[in-house]
């Protein structure tokens, strides 16, 4: 009898899947962790929404919009007759309130930070209850697309951020266990036949960090989808139920390693000299077998990375980039031309120091641990000895951002959006997240100065062609200089139970439930 209950719940229209961690906040303006992003996507109403399948921007709460030529101003025409989940009417005042809150420096909203293109205040002008214009102090690249992440908050509702405009609303939250979202009775959207959306009655999100347990529950029909499936589980499910697994192809995410190029790092000078040499970095990159990594670690569900952006980012990826050839012989020759010597299986620099360094990665990620071990084996072939160290994440972050007490790091980059502007803080040499050498007072190399110039150029331009040209050049410089050694782009793998109708997994987050309002259960 008890075993039938999960099946009964599904029949009532409850979608069940897992969050990998506890959501830290339900305030859409303070969201930064993955679990909170998921909840925001499911409950938040936005002015415009990027269709995750076509990547085109579509009207949502805004019927139409216009961006000024200088990229500083956007005017929205809003739909009328819409209410929040608690019945409070929606109007331009709510949009103004949301923008003011978001841009409040005291709030430190990650969503707001994406709009901070220059000093000065943001101005909102309510033209009518259904029309508002927002003016930024400086041009914001891809201004309209950025509003895909801005969930509108009510200016008047006593429920504050819990009054929502999205298809679902938070009904029950059991800390550490689960989150229940119920259909928003006031959701404004209908389908082509005039039926109210969403089709589902509710969504049950269980908090389960362990992927083995998640897979087990999916196999037992206790879950309806796995949003980000491990490659070995993909293969296992593919043999027994191939119709439930989906490989949407290379995702936007990448795995990469980099060397510590911080001048004040507590490293011996000879190691700093290695790491700051582009020839050394390129040689290491050449000596790593990316094909084997994609084949063994990710079981073929990844492809060797070619540069900072995945080819899945069709518009922004620089098609002129070529795959980085695996060639330990060429790598060794290149190092020898830099004064390194290969003696008795050990590579030594021109001063006789054996090339030995450590590579750290976060523990608990079996893919990175295996990748690090494969890199260790690959580089051993050219006489470089690597010590693999796995650390808990806070310790790793501390070394990476505060003490700079590390030599090489293996981590990944999760790209939520397509626009290179979202990675401004990675490429600008003065930024905190310029990981190989953060917060440079002035660019320490000419190529970093050039990247700074190009990134600022593309950020201030409204012409997509000009922006693409500039960012293509950034990608080429990054590959030449290899401050990051890009390894693989993982495929976007997911699993969707057969009872689920309407799901069409894609590479953009959220992969499987991007069209949640049109998903139903048999």
């Amino acid at each position, binding site marked *: 009898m008890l075993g039938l209950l999960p099946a009964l719940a599904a029949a009532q229209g409850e979608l069940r899947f897992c969050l990998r961690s506890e959501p830290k906040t339900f305030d859409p303006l303070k969201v930064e962790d993955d679990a909170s992003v998921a909840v925001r996507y499911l409950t938040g109403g936005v002015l415009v929404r990027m269709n995750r399948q076509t990547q085109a921007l579509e009207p949502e709460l805004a019927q139409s919009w216009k961006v000024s030529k200088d990229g500083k101003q956007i005017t929205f025409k809003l739909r009328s007759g819409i209410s929040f989940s608690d019945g409070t009417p929606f109007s331009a005042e709510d949009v103004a309130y949301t923008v003011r809150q978001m841009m409040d420096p005291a709030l430190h909203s990650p969503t707001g930070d994406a709009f901070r293109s220059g000093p000065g205040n943001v101005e909102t002008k309510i033209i009518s209850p259904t029309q508002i214009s927002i003016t930024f102090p400086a041009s914001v690249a891809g201004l309209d697309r950025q509003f895909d992440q801005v969930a509108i908050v009510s200016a008047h509702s006593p429920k504050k951020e819990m009054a929502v405009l999205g298809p679902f609303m938070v009904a029950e939250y059991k800390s550490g266990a689960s989150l229940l979202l119920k259909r928003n009775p006031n959701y404004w959207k209908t389908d082509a036949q005039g039926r109210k959306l969403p089709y589902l009655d509710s969504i049950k999100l269980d908090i389960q960090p362990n992927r*083995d347990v998640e*897979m*087990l529950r999916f*196999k037992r029909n206790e879950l309806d989808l796995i949003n980000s499936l491990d490659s*070995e*589980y993909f293969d*296992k499910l593919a043999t027994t139920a191939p119709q439930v697994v989906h490989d949407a192809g290379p995702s936007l995410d990448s795995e990469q390693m980099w060397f510590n190029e911080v001048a004040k790092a507590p490293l011996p000078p000879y190691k700093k000299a290695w790491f700051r040499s582009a020839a050394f970095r390129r040689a290491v990159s050449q000596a790593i077998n990316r094909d*084997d990594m994609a*084949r*063994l*670690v990710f079981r073929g569900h990844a492809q060797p990375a070619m540069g900072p952006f995945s080819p899945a980012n069709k518009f922004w990826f620089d098609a002129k980039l070529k795959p980085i050839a695996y060639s330990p012989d060429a790598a060794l020759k290149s190092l020898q031309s830099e004064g390194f010597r290969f003696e008795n299986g050990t590579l030594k620099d021109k001063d006789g120091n054996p090339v*030995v*360094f*450590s590579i*750290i990665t976060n*523990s*608990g990620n079996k893919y990175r*641990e*295996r990748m*690090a*071990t*494969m890199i*260790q*084996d690959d580089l051993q072939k050219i006489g470089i000895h690597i*010590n*693999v*160290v*796995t*650390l*808990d994440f806070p*310790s790793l972050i501390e070394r990476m951002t505060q003490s700079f*007490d*590390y*030599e090489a790091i293996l981590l990944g980059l999760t790209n939520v959006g397509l626009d290179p502007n979202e990675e401004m803080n990675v490429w600008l040499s003065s930024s905190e997240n310029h990981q190989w050498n953060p917060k440079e007072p002035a660019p320490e190399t000419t190529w970093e100065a050039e990247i700074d110039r190009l990134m600022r150029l593309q950020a201030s331009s409204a012409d997509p062609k000009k922006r693409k040209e500039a960012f293509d050049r950034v990608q080429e410089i990054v590959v030449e200089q290899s401050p990051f050694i890009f390894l693989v782009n993982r495929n976007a793998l997911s699993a969707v139970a057969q009872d689920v109708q309407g799901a069409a997994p894609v590479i953009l987050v959220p992969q499987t439930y991007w069209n949640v309002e049109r998903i139903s259960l048999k």
Partner: protein
Amino acid sequence: MTIWRGMACAVLVLVVCLSLFASWLAPDGYAKQYREVADAPPSATHWLGTDEIGRDRFARVLYGTRISLLLAPAAALLSTLMAALIGGLAGYVGGAWARIAMAITDLFLSLPWLFLLITVRALLPLNVSPLVSVLVTFLMLGLLGWTAAARVLCTTAGTLRGSDFVRQARASGISPTRLFWIHVAPNLKPVLYAQFWISIPVFILSEANLGILGLGVAEPMPSWGSLLRELEGLVSIGEQPWKFVSLLLLVIVVTSFQLVLSQEEAAA
């Protein structure tokens, strides 16, 4: 010697010999990656198959045995001696000293030692050799793993302190030190043997868990603990029983240790 004890001795000798002759039995070593036959089932070339990146599992089990079989018992011995000294002495002395010692023991049981271990890792250089890293790990385990037994030993020693034969011995004028070593300590053996026997597999497993903090063996060096971590992918390895070899080996060795020790336990 009973048949069981004889068999257990033979098993332990065999396991030790296999690990000592690892470089002869698996000449390619534990780190070589046969990437064309990764995650392969057992075969003539790879008796226990290969792992996800093509390393021979049989070689890794053999070499891992050296680390675990040598260091885990050493750490277990250390924790047992510390439990004996702290718990046993405290119970023997009694009074306020026993209370203070047990309060410290209870504190030790409750504190989040995870952070001490994280700090230890931070103090070690990143390029520390895998051997030093694993030595430090087992040393830390030995230094922190004595608390449970200390409590039981304190109670046992306290009970003995008040027993007739100890009172008689004291009345006969024997020195407190001699009294402790000759009359009290031998009666703590049942608890000490249990502590030693339990600590071996516990420390082997703990060493693997400490990999999360950057301690324990570093790649590519194997240990039983790191091999046992494969079992955490239980859902996917159900149809690959050869992956359970490391668990089977650990069970056999631990049980053999116990059967060998049981004679001493019986006599204690």
